[in-house]
């Protein structure tokens, strides 16, 4: 394959991957984060005690997380068609990616928020803070480094998941690797795809780590 053609294939696939990862990451986080906050604060005796809802939503999240992604993709095709009007193509692929991201983010966010020292919640309650003020001024503020790392992990996982949506014509780097590298026996394409993926993942991880470090004031030394 000529370098020009390879470049054109790669850049198109990279663009599709980024579209899917960014869109699914953004929408999935916007929905998953509040669910994570709910899971972390609605247990018995917590800020918004609702143990029954907590258990039901927890079970749904677990179910969604244990469904293999490729099965989720085909299982929700009717829903995908409802949302995007089609079940194939990059935009259509964003729907299952988003659906898979929501429970993933929810669990990671829950863990990050539960890491916040309970003493801080008590201190804020003693100041007369409302539960919502505690969520925004204490929990989310203190969990920011952890949440940043959680979102970084989410984006990295999405890069991997996005390789699977080739099954519904989602395109992207993974799809390119499979179709050209594997099915057409073009190892150079496969190699190029893997290199680009490594660079993308590395970039996301480094940016996330740097951001989390900046948010983390816990280990400062005078």
């Amino acid at each position, binding site marked *: 394959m000529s370098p020009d053609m390879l470049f054109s294939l790669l850049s198109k696939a990279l663009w599709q991957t980024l579209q899917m990862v960014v869109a699914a990451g953004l929408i999935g986080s916007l929905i998953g984060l509040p669910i994570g906050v709910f899971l972390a604060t609605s247990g018995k005796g917590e800020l918004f005690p609702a143990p029954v809802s907590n258990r039901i939503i927890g079970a749904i999240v677990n179910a969604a997380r244990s469904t293999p992604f490729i099965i989720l993709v085909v299982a929700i095709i009717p829903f995908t068609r409802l949302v995007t009007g089609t079940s194939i193509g990059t935009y259509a692929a964003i729907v299952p990616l988003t659906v898979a991201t929501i429970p993933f983010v929810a669990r990671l966010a829950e863990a990050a928020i539960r890491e916040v020292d309970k*003493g801080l919640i*008590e201190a804020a309650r003693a100041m*007369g803070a409302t539960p919502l003020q505690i969520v925004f001024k*204490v929990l989310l*503020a*203190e969990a920011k480094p952890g949440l940043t790392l959680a979102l970084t992990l989410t984006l990295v996982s999405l890069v991997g998941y996005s390789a699977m949506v080739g099954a519904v014509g989602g395109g992207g780097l993974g799809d390119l690797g499979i179709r050209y590298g594997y099915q057409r026996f073009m190892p150079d394409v496969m190699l190029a795809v893997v290199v680009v993926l490594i660079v993308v993942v590395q970039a996301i991880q480094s940016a996330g780590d740097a951001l989390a470090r900046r948010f983390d*004031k*816990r280990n400062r030394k005078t």
Partner: protein
Amino acid sequence: MTFPNAAVRTEPHPVATATPMVAFEAVTKRFGDAGDQNQFTALDGVDLSVARGAITGIIGRSGAGKSTLIRLVNGLEKATSGRVVVDGVEVGGLSETGLRDLRREIGMIFQHFNLLSSRTAFDNVALPLEIAGLDRAAIRAKVAPLLDLVGLGDKSDRYPAELSGGQKQRIGIARALATSPKLLLSDEATSALDPETTQSILALLKRINAELGLTVLLITHEMEVVKTIASDVAVIDRGRIVEAGRTFDVFTGAKHETTRSLLSAALGTNLPDWIRSNLKPQPSAGDRVLVRLIFFGATAFQPLTARLVTELGADVNILAGTIEEIAGEPYGSLVVAYPADPAVTERAERFYAATGLSTEVLGYVA
């Protein structure tokens, strides 16, 4: 030193004789559901009043119920039965909104400081004001003088991780004072600090109490803390208040076992082990009696030991002794031994009665 909060306070400093700042009336607190075998009674019929403008200490061992007790005051815990009344308002009868308003009038400091690691010293002190809905300018006007008050005006932009334990607690105190509270709750505030830092934090609390007229209710397991700053004390043991009153009276006239054991550690009145292990409850012939002499008030300044030796006409050994200051008054304790001969002990009793010295027979040794 100027006190930004003092200007807000319109009423004159309340006096200790007024209605109490906090009153516990037959307060019981149980954790767990009734009938559950894991149900635990943390507080059992507690009656206690906390005087306005005073520093009141509640002392007890861990698990005695003191954390629960202090959390009932600002409604972090709810009493199972009985009433908790803060400045005339029954805490248990308040709605969530009423409770939040009350909490803005009660500052609280914690053993582990509970500062937000993501906020600078300034922003930590600002937090209760943000919660109360003050604007940025008003917050700035309140926070800076508070940081000066606790002596950390130059650490305004530092994060908690960059501060020492004592500095963190000072920020905690500034934060607790931000909303100009009428009551300060201190939950083991010095327990994580070294002795020297403890003293400086206690001095700060004492100064705030004196200059702002702020009522302070503190819980601690350290007798040293109570002895240094509390004018009133309550001793709690297994969910019950076993002794309460003026600190000096409770300490010098300690009746309850818990008070005595907490005291002996703090006052250095513990006997050396080799003596304690040989103590007998009843004398046999030729034994010596061990007596603890307690000096306070008028007796603290008289040369009574020298006179005791003369009066008894017998050998007197001194085994242990200490002089302390409790709530600002001198208090001495001396353990002496002399022959348990009835003639000698009778002369000793007469001497004690005549001088008003308080004594306690500890036991007998061969």
